[in-house]
């Protein structure tokens, strides 16, 4: 097991994410699926820009506040391949659009609604993620 396993902060952070999703649904009636919130920024006709921007800007502020508090404003990973970052971005963007969701949309909100579609999506993207890392870290060397 990794020495980087951080159970307490994982549980606390996870609970906050869950709470945030519940609040967005109860207060605004919206699903806290980040890919969906982002894709909605480009909907034509434009609508709902307000709450989407408010959510996203506050997300950045919340994360930034923690980075500042915890002294992690310098992102730890350096020197990662830029072409791979770009390919990864293309795949994540296309995949979340085609599949209608991501880890928050399907993994938290969808599962919380007991959605069979989301369960399938989660199982498939997890498997795809496991396979990709296995190939990248252990399979192609």
């Amino acid at each position: 097991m990794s020495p980087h396993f951080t159970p307490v902060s994982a549980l606390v952070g996870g609970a906050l994410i869950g709470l945030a999703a519940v609040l967005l649904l109860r207060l605004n009636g919206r699903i806290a699926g980040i890919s969906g919130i982002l894709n909605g920024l480009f909907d034509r006709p434009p609508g709902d820009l307000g709450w989407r921007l408010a959510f996203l800007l506050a997300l950045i502020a919340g994360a930034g506040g923690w980075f500042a508090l915890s002294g992690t404003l310098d992102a730890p990973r350096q020197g990662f391949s830029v072409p791979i970052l770009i390919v990864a971005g293309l795949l994540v963007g296309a995949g979340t659009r085609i599949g209608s969701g991501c880890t928050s949309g399907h993994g938290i909100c969808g599962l919380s609604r007991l959605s069979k579609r989301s369960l399938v999506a989660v199982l498939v993207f997890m498997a795809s993620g496991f396979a990709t890392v296995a190939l990248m870290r252990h399979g192609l060397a």
Partner: protein
Amino acid sequence: MNPRLASAALAGLLFGLGLAISGMTEPDKILGFLDLAGAWDPSLALVMSAALAVSLPGYRYAMRHPRAVCADPLQLPTARKLDNNLVLGAVLFGAGWGLAGYCPGPAIANLARLNPEVLAFLPAMFAGSLFAARLSR
């Protein structure tokens, strides 16, 4: 301030805090979870478990009300079919996630520290999404 904006901001703030505190903004922790054959970091599983422990009952409670507190009706997804797009999309998304360790939320969160990685990742992500949307027209 408009109450809808205030409540969306509250939710966003907690979401961003949660992402950062849980370590999900660190791609190495994500890849550590996805690396089953390596030094496995189960943190992501704990994050999801804790999130669901709150959101499963929370959603059940919220969905008992047809309208949100702001008075808008709940806008829930209506698709039900397990179709090819769902699976294809998940395969592609998982591959991209496994390549760099970023999904949309953490990538956006990393803008807070001007992480140069997401300055490459995010435009590509938007491009991929727009391209996929065009394809389905």
